[in-house]
C-alpha cells in the first residue's frame, strides 16, 4: 500500500460515485470505484439527463445556489470529459421549458420561480410565456398548453453516454473501476480505518471510504453511524424511435436525445423497489406528449421503463461525514447529473478538508435530526 497516498474506495459506480472519484483523482488522490451488480437499482441508467435549475431550491437557498454553481460549471466540465474520455456527452444548455396545461399550476410554479430568483439574484432569470406566444414562436405546440416557464441556464446531456464518459474518464485519470463488485458491509476497523467486506468474501482495508451507492448505501451507511435514510421514488419514462428532425424545445418532461429519440418522463410514485413500468402511467405520459406537441402522435414508443430516484426526506442532497467514525463520507442525491461538475471538483476538497472546501453544512444529515426534534 502506498502510505502517503492510500487508495480511497468509492462504493458505487453510478454517476455520483464516478463523479466523486474523478474529483478525487484530479486532486491527486488514488481511487478504487466498487460498482454493484448488473441488475442492481441503477438510477444512473434510467434517468432523463437533465442539467436543470428551474424550481430547484426555491424553498432552500443553499440548494438553489449549489445547483446554480453546478449549471455554471457544466460547460468546462463537459470539455474536460471529452479531454479525458474522448466521449462527447452532447451538453446542450440552450434553455429549457416547463409546460403547463393548467393555469393555476402555472401560477403556483411562477411564484416558486420568483422565490428562487430572490435567492439567486442576477444568477437566475426566468420568463413566463403564454400559450399563444409559445405557439407563435414554435408552430406545433398543442392548443391545450396554457403557457410555459423558460430558463436560459437549463439544458441536458446524453445520460448514457455521460455515464460511460465518466467511467472511461476515471480510468484515464488513473482510477480503478471494478464492476460487478458489490460491497456487502463496511465495518469500522479497530484502531481506525475501515474493512470493506465484498460480496465475494474478500475483505479490503481502507483509511477512508466514500459511500455513493444511491439506494444501496442505506444499509452500509447505518453501520457507520449515518442516520440519513434515502427512499426510492419511481419515475417512469418512454423513449421513441429516432427522429431526423429536432424538437424545437427542451422541457423537463419531453426532451430529444441527441441521437434522435424522444424521451418523456417526470412521473413520481412511491412503489418501493419496484421499477416496473405501468400501463396507466405510460398512457398518461403519451397523452402529455401529444398534448404538448401533437406532431408526436404518429411517433412510435419503443420502450417504457421505470427507474428509482434516490430521494432524501427533503429532496436535497446529503453530504455528510461520520462523526462516530472519521474518514467515512456519505454522498447521496437525486440530481446526480446536474451536480456532477461540483462532485467532480470541489467535493474532493470537502472530503480532503482543504481550505478550498465549500461550506456544505446545510447539506449535513443533522438537518433531519433537527426537523425531527422540532
Amino acid at each position, binding site marked *: 500500500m502506498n502510505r502517503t497516498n492510500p487508495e480511497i474506495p468509492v462504493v458505487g459506480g453510478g454517476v455520483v460515485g464516478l463523479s466523486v472519484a474523478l474529483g478525487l483523482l484530479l486532486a491527486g488522490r488514488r481511487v478504487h470505484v466498487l460498482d454493484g451488480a*448488473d441488475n442492481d437499482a441503477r438510477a444512473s441508467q434510467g434517468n432523463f439527463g437533465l442539467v436543470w435549475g428551474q424550481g430547484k431550491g426555491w424553498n432552500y437557498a443553499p440548494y438553489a445556489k449549489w445547483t446554480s454553481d453546478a449549471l455554471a460549471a457544466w460547460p468546462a466540465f463537459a470539455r474536460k470529459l471529452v479531454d479525458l474520455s474522448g466521449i462527447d456527452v452532447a451538453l446542450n444548455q440552450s434553455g429549457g421549458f416547463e409546460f403547463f396545461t393548467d393555469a393555476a399550476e402555472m401560477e403556483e410554479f411562477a411564484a416558486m420561480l420568483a422565490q428562487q430568483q430572490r435567492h439567486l439574484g442576477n444568477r437566475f432569470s426566468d420568463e413566463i410565456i403564454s400559450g399563444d406566444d409559445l405557439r407563435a414562436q414554435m408552430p406545433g405546440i398543442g392548443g391545450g398548453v396554457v403557457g410555459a416557464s423558460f430558463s436560459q441556464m437549463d439544458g441536458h446531456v446524453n445520460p448514457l453516454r455521460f455515464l*460511460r464518459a465518466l467511467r472511461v474518464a476515471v480510468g484515464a485519470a488513473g482510477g480503478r473501476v471494478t464492476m460487478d463488485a458489490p460491497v456487502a458491509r463496511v465495518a469500522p476497523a479497530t484502531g481506525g480505518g475501515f474493512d470493506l467486506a465484498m460480496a465475494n468474501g474478500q475483505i479490503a482495508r481502507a483509511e477512508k471510504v466514500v459511500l455513493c451507492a444511491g439506494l444501496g448505501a442505506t444499509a452500509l451507511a447505518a453501520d457507520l453511524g449515518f442516520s440519513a435514510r434515502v427512499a426510492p421514488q419511481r419515475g417512469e419514462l418512454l423513449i421513441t424511435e429516432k427522429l431526423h428532425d429536432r424538437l424545437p424545445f427542451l422541457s423537463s418532461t419531453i426532451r430529444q436525445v441527441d441521437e434522435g429519440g424522444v424521451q418523456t418522463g417526470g412521473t413520481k410514485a412511491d412503489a418501493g423497489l419496484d421499477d416496473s413500468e405501468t*400501463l396507466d402511467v405510460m398512457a398518461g405520459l403519451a*397523452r402529455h406528449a401529444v398534448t404538448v406537441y401533437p406532431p408526436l402522435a404518429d411517433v*412510435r414508443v*419503443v420502450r417504457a421503463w421505470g427507474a428509482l430516484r434516490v430521494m432524501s426526506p427533503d429532496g436535497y442532497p446529503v453530504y455528510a461525514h461520520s462523526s462516530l467514525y472519521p474518514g467515512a463520507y456519505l454522498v447521496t442525491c437525486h440530481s446526480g447529473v446536474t451536480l456532477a461538475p461540483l462532485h467532480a471538483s470541489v467535493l474532493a476538497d470537502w472530503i480532503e478538508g482543504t481550505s478550498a472546501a465549500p461550506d456544505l453544512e446545510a447539506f449535513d444529515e443533522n438537518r433531519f435530526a433537527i426537523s425531527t426534534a422540532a
Partner: protein
Amino acid sequence: MSAAITAADGGLRVLLLDEQAQPGGQIYRNVGARLATHSWLGKDYASGLRLLDALAQSGVTVQSGATVWRVDSGPRVVWSQNGISQVTTASHILLASGAQERPVPFPGWTLPGVMTAGAAQILMKTAGMLPKDAVLAGSGPLLYLVAAQMIDAGCPPKALVETQTPRMMLRAFPHLPKALLSAGTLLKGLRLIGKIRAAGVRRYKGASSFAATSDDSGMINFSFRSKGRLENLTCAVLLTHQGVILSTHMSRAAGITHEWNAAQVAFQPSCDIWGATDRPGLHVAGDGAGIGGAEAACAAGTLAALDILRASGHISANTRNQRAATARATLFRTRAIRPFLDAAYAPPAEILSPPDQTIICRCEDVTARAIRQGMSEGAAGHRQIKSSLRAGMGPCQGRMCDSTVRGILSAGNTSRMGDIAPPRARTPIKPITFGEMAALTTHSEDTA
C-alpha cells in the same frame, strides 16, 4: 390454435390474438389460403388445415393482425389492431409466442440478398415466391426442409453450405437411441437429405469463416472455409439458418422467471408440465415455451388448455390428467429427438461470438468490436452493454442481437452463457405510437 380449440370445446370463452394476417403461426403460415403452389411445401404443412378447420368450428373469437404489446398481472393483455389498442382482462392468459430463427451474424449478413432460410420459406408459403440462384448456409432441420421444398418446386438451391462437423455428429450420437422414439421425424429428415443428394445439390461440410460481399449488380459473393480450403460462391440470395430460439420478449416482459436451456443455447420460461408459470394466471405453450416443433406445440397447447379448464373449475384434476394422456405421450415422443438435433446442429462458436468487424445489433449498427471494447471498459452484463453502446435499443428491441451479445460476453463459451441473466424486456414489446398509447381505453372482457 390447439389450446384455443381445446379450451373452447371445454366451455370457455376464448379470445385468440394473433399478430399475423391469418392464423397458423409461422409453421402453418398462410395455410388457409390453399394456394396451388402449396403442393411442394409438403404434407406436414398441409396438415395445418385440419387445425384451421377445427378452429373455425370451435367458437373461438379470432383477432388476426392483433399485436400483443403488454401482458400484465391481473391478468390482462394489451393489444393493438389497425392502430387501436385495447385492454382485455381474463382469468387466464396463455402465451404462445413461438420462436424466431437464431440470428446468424457474420461479416456481410446485413447486405440486401442475405436473408434467413425461414424468410424464404415464408415467401414460398405466403406469396408462392421462390428464391433464384440461392445458396443455403448454416445447419439445422429447417435448412434441409427448405432445400427439399425448393427442389420439389423445381428451383433447387445452388449449394448447401453446412457448418455441421463430424465431431458434432459424434457428440449427437449418444442421443440417437432416445431419438429413435421419434423415428418418424428421423426418417423424414433422412428422406430430406436423400432428396437433396438425389437432386445433385453441391454440399460443403464443416464450413466456417462465413463472409459476404456484394457487387454493383447486387450479386452476393459468399466466402467460407470448408475442409481447409477457402471457397467462393456467387449467388443472388444467401439464405442462412442456425436453428431456432424461443421468442421470450412477451414472457420476460410479463415477469415470468426464465431458465437456461443448455442444449438449445437459449433461455426459456420456467413452467411445469402444464405450461403453468410462476405468474398467476399465465401459462406458456408452444415453441415459446421450449423448441419442439409443430406437433409438440399442439400437444403443449392441449395440456395448457386442459390445465386452464381445471383451474377455472370446468374439469377436475383427474379428468385433466386422463384427457392429457395422448398429448403427454406426443410431447414425450416429439421431444425425444431434441437432444439429438440440439447436439447435431449446435450453433458454432463463430456464430455465437463473431469476428470483430461483424455488425451485431443491426438496428443501431453496433459491431462485435464495439461490444468487446465495452467489455474492456468493464461491462459484464447485458444491461451495461446496452446502456453504454445502445445494442438492443432499436426498434427490434434486441431480438436480433441479445443472443449474440450473450455469446460475446461469454466469448462463445456455451457453458458460461447461462450465467448471464437475460436482459430485461420492457413494454411495449412491439413499438406503438404515442397517439395510440394516449388513446388507450380499458374494456373488460371475461375470457379464458
